[in-house]
């Protein structure tokens, strides 16, 4: 605003997105500004909507796993796994032990790579490109392990109704954990930058605050919820092998962008510990049970904790090979109200940072 504009301007509406340099995915906001302050934000989604839930009516229920894995390319394995769990519940199938532990292994691997990806993008959002590149370099090692154990870099393709489709031997798993070791040290080094660097603190501390009550009332999930002080992690439900693993949800209380960073940094460290434990305790045995015939009539729903938060899957079967209904409620979708709350009151320059700290995944939000 130039200084010779005498009349006080009214609110200005600025379109943000859908094609925006900081967003890898299209998301659109109408931001209402008063001077530099954002007073309102109206999100508009739909740029990635494909309609893949309806595809369940056309595909064989066993083949649909491949579509479920492509709900989102970042939490791909967990989407596949959630669908499988929901279908297995209807079928009344008990997954073999080794498959349960392998699922846990890949879930945690995915969490690490997703959080590293996010750390990079978030750094990029406030212009710290070096940090972006450092995070992504560390991530590549994790991706290599994913590729070696599952066969895919981002779309693992190892989820299967009744178990998993790949069986990396124990030797490979141990070797992978060794390969990942340097990443842990690298992440500790990156964490020092995130926590200690004054410029980073300046951009994140006290920005985009969401109170504990608001986070809970608006139905926030995942790191967004835990950063505001609510102790809730769907993994504590004990699905797959989580019931046999020691861990505690990472919780922060500040509720600002910095707290969300701290939660995710803590979760990376925690995931590494879980991975260690999983590899150490990996039971022997088959990795899948054969599934034959039609699913019985019935419905089920499943909750999982993805990197971005709790996700819900609902499946209804009508007794044929094509399921009747599949529904996903994804974490980003649940986090949008809290994000809108966090954006209010920040200055325009902080909008990308705040949007990024919820770790938006638009492609699963819109499916």
């Amino acid at each position, binding site marked *: 605003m130039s200084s010779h504009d005498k009349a006080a301007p009214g609110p200005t509406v600025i379109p943000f997105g*859908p*094609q*925006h*340099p900081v967003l*890898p*995915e*299209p998301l659109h906001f109408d931001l209402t500004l008063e001077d530099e302050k954002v007073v309102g934000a109206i999100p508009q989604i*739909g*740029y*990635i*909507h*494909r*309609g*893949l839930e*309806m*595809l369940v009516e*056309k595909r064989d229920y066993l083949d649909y796993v*491949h*579509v479920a894995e*492509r*709900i*989102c*390319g*970042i939490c*791909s394995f967990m989407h596949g796994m959630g669908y499988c769990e929901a279908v297995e519940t209807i079928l009344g199938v008990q997954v073999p032990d080794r498959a349960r532990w392998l699922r846990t292994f890949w879930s945690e691997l995915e969490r690490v790579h997703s959080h590293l*990806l996010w750390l*990079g993008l978030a750094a990029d959002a406030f212009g710290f490109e070096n940090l*972006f*590149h450092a995070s*992504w*370099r560390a991530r*590549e090692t994790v*991706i290599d392990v994913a590729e070696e154990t599952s066969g*895919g*870099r*981002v*779309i693992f393709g190892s989820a299967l109704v009744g178990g998993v489709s790949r069986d990396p031997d124990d030797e490979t798993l141990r070797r992978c954990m060794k390969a990942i070791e340097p990443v842990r040290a690298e992440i500790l080094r990156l964490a020092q930058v995130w926590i200690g660097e004054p410029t980073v603190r300046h951009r994140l501390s006290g920005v985009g605050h969401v109170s504990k009550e608001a986070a809970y009332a608006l139905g926030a999930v995942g790191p967004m919820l835990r950063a505001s002080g609510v102790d809730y992690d769907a993994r504590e439900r004990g699905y797959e092998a989580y019931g046999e693993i020691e861990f505690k949800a990472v919780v922060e209380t500040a509720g600002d962008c910095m707290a969300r960073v701290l939660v995710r940094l803590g979760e990376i460290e925690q995931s590494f510990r879980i991975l260690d434990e999983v590899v150490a305790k990996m039971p022997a045995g088959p990795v899948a049970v054969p599934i034959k015939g039609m699913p019985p009539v019935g419905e089920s729903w499943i909750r999982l904790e993805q990197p971005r938060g709790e996700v819900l899957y609902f499946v209804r079967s009508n007794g044929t090979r094509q399921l009747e209904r599949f529904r996903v409620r994804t974490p980003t979708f649940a986090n949008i109200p809290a994000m809108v709350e966090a954006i209010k009151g920040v200055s325009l320059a902080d909008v990308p940072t705040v949007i990024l700290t919820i770790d938006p*995944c*638009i*492609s*699963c939000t*819109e499916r």
Partner: protein
Amino acid sequence: MSAIEKSPWLIHYDASSCNGCDIEVLACLTPMYDAERFGCIVTGDPKQADIFLITGSVNNLNIPVVKNIYEQMPEPKAVVAIGACAYSGGVFAECYNVQGGVAKVIPVDVYVPGCAAKPESILDGVVRAAQILAEKKKAMRKARRAARHAESPAQEAAK
């Protein structure tokens, strides 16, 4: 590689993909694969871009966005469609809200296969697009020269 005579600037847009190919596009820009060694820079501004990296099968809402980006890019330009989705709709081909491929909306120069496309093949696609870009540029120059030649005798006669 000798065909690349300028630094191609890239623009990336996700036209209803699953994200898998997008994060691989980003991985191409980071130290492991480092597309910048080919002189590429990513820009957010279509008016400065030479190569359009597009993923996803294009849905009804983003058709205008895709067209808009494409039209704002100056000539010569090249389009790289990344992933099975961008080719035919991929796994989503039968969904009600997809167009089934980028080529339904804008002309495509290079297709990168895979679901998800691997960074190596995306880099290959970018290099090929840079070559196509150089050829298009040559053709444009030639056409301009030819147009000038065609013009000048007429001007002579007018005098």
